[in-house]
């Protein structure tokens, strides 16, 4: 067993530190060491997107990031998406409204990918473009229609809010 390293990082605005083997993935560190089990592991080879989190604001697959690589950086997970009083993020509300989840296992990854999408491409409107943007996350239950509808609705809402 390799020597453990100390890491310090900010997760959902709060400081965390831990001792990890260099080979430990960020996903395992979040789930097993910190009990932040909202982030899920669906394939552990970077395809399904269930483990998507934001690292310094950008969507990454936490199964492909080592915990030591997150040292000194800012991590956002699904647990931090709702506001301090539990008020839901608009995409969470829209997922509920549009039946965009069934078993809910892939949901956290989708939510984090979508948060990144709406931030990097706030003008996205076209359904096909949305579908292409969502194609990095897999869902076996829903057939995606509710997810697409939820994204379209929130994107439109954000556009309206930006237009004075």
């Amino acid at each position: 067993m390799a020597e453990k390293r100390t890491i310090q990082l900010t997760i959902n605005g709060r400081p965390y530190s831990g001792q990890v083997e260099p080979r430990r993935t960020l996903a395992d560190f979040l789930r097993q060491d910190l009990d932040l089990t909202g982030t899920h592991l669906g394939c552990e080879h970077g395809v399904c997107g269930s483990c998507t989190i934001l690292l310094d604001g950008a969507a990454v697959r936490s199964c492909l990031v080592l915990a030591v690589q997150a040292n000194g950086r800012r991590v956002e997970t699904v647990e931090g998406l709702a506001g301090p009083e539990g008020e839901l993020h608009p995409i969470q509300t829209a997922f509920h409204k549009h039946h965009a989840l069934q078993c809910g296992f892939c949901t956290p990854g989708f939510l984090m990918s979508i948060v990144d999408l709406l931030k990097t491409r706030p003008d996205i409107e076209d359904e096909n473009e949305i579908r292409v943007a969502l194609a990095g996350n897999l869902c076996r239950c829903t057939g995606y229609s509710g997810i697409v509808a939820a994204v379209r609705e929130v994107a439109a809402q954000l556009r309206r809010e930006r237009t004075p």
Partner: protein
Amino acid sequence: MSRALFGTRVERREDLPLLTGQGCFTDDLKRPGMLHAAVLRSPHAHAKIRSIDVSAARALAGVVAVFTHADLGAAGKEIPLLQPNPLLVAHTQLLLAHDEVRYVGEPVAFVVGDDRYVTEDALELIEVAYEPLAVAADAQEALKDDAPLVYPEIANNLASRFTLGFGDVAESFARADLVLRQRFKIHRGAGQAMEGRVVLAEYDRRANRITMWSATQAPHLIGRLASEMLGIEERQVRVIAPHDVGGGFGPKAIFYPEEGLVPFAARALGRPVKWTEDRREHFLSTNQERDMYHDAEMALTREGKILAFRDTVVFDTGAYVPWGIVDPWISATTIPGPYKLPAFQVDMQVVYTHKVPVTPVRGAGRPQAVFVMERMMDLAARELQLDPAEIRQRNFIQPEEMPYAMGLVYRDGAQVIYDSGDYPACLRKSQDLIGYDQFRREQSRARSEGRYIGVGIGVYVEGTGLGPYEGAIVQIESSGKVLVTTGATPQGQGHVTTMAQIAADELGINVDDVTVVTGDTGAIPFGVGTFASRIAVNAGNSIALAAREVREKALDIAANLLEANKDDLELAQGSVFVRGAPARSISLGALALTAAGARPGYTLPPGVQPGLLATNYFSPSQAAYASGAHVITVEVDVRTGDVKILDYAVAHDCGRMINPMIVEGQIQGGVAHGIGNSFYEELIYDNNGQLLTASFMDYLLPTAKEVPTAKIAHMEVVCPLNPLGVKGAGEGGTIPSAAAFAGAVEDALAPFNVTVREVPLSPEKIRKLLREAGR
């Protein structure tokens, strides 16, 4: 009862925790002192095990134990067969292979240690001396006389052979105007729930009790088989499918070796043990389904009326048959579908191969059956120059002919009797959704422009809601709220919402005042499981009937307390009151307290047992037959073989719908699975039985880009066989999808006269068809 909630789009009560990262999946659970496990799997599809040396693995720091078959003692026996059948020579797995392995991925050793990293390190230190043997990788090849044998005593690897049928097939073929013959191949796929299998177990030595958590579709089944494998009384094993299970789709309804190994190790070591399947293990060890070869023959009159159907089928069952011959049997009895067949015969050969065992995956034998029948209908239409919709209309069983006895015995041992349905209207409805006639006009225009667009039809009938039963305990608590406990266990189907809708309607309360407890063998003694589109029928009706009994009991006690005639009482908004005198009322909570004996000295009304509680196990008399028609339009790029889905329409009948939003979610999700089976998902094994597509890089699941939103029309033909009038809705989205796509692609390529004989239809295969047609 009121129908305030039944049939409405009640929003899901499951969502909030799942949206905020507070879901509770099996791998999220931790127990004090918990160890982690990893499984050493066979790298060979067929080999003798000469020796296993685990000494280096055992010596590794952080490893607590390594188990091989030699360490299992009395648990070193075959897992009990679920569905014995005199027509079957059955073999099921050991928890760990003994002296022979029969598929790549078969468990050989089980390592337990401090964390998953160290246990996987230890796997690499285990030395197994294998002597590789010849492999039967394909079912057709495996039937040949010189094929390698999976079991030496089973000639030609033939696990089972049976024939089913009715009518005089030979005579019908002899007098037919048209006889069509075609060979089809349908490929196996995998369940691929996004959450893999996960098992956690702990052992209480003083009480000699095992508690297991499993990401399963069938906790009662797991508990029963675990108790049998571990030699412990069934009541001493409690199995919990946690609140959240990340998808099932069939393969999680099986007892797997790990469900014996994890509690075995937990008991042996006196510490909790958890094993979490990774995706590669899912590819190599979670049951798969659908490999079939069909040689189909259809006899027709020149008007396009079917006279007879004959099918010779080879079914690849993999290396073991934990579910017996359920799949091939369902498949055989589904072939006739919605059509009137004067004569029918199927000869089914179930064949062992050196591959992952086969058990139901969403559709369970039906997609293959529908594929074959619908392909033959399309070919007949082409031959007779009829529209594919028209030839189907000429052969449909008519709604006024219901109930319709097919003349076959279903897997439950009962006759196949379609209880209800309107197939002609259903197909027309689906055609209307797609704009069928207009599409035909566009098609000729597109062809003249060099664009190849086509429309395909898939019609199915599905026996849903199979028994033997599912149960419910409905209890009114002293708070006035209602607790529903059922053996059914959800994996995303929204049972906590739909089951609460039923109970709330029956008891005149708010849906939010109903708590639904699922998937815990400690909460309800008997259960069967969530598979075969059976929960709405089985659990739904048991909840309704138990709630009705509780309601009667509440009225009996209220009549006594209010000194009123029971017939004058009404139950609404959580209280019982005297009709016309609402001031004379008593809340359900107060009634529950009274019934619980909270007023010492009070006498319960004569005949009333304590507790506002009732248990009901609903056992359906036979399957409830759901049906539907998918009509799909596609455009094929003849240069690349790429298929673009233009439009997807589904008209279906699942009886009365409890919650249309949830039904539509099931259909849309099923359609996505069908798209995967039709175009993308392929478990490619080489001749050595090695799986070449064991990752999501190679085995493609459809994404949002590939799955359009289906247009859905509901036809609610009430099922006469159960009080709620419901049928199942979980699999219909998948069942006819491949058949309709095959028809659509073939129709698009009609100018080249190609015949689609297999799925999945990769661009490569479509190009091959076109090349063979000289294009």
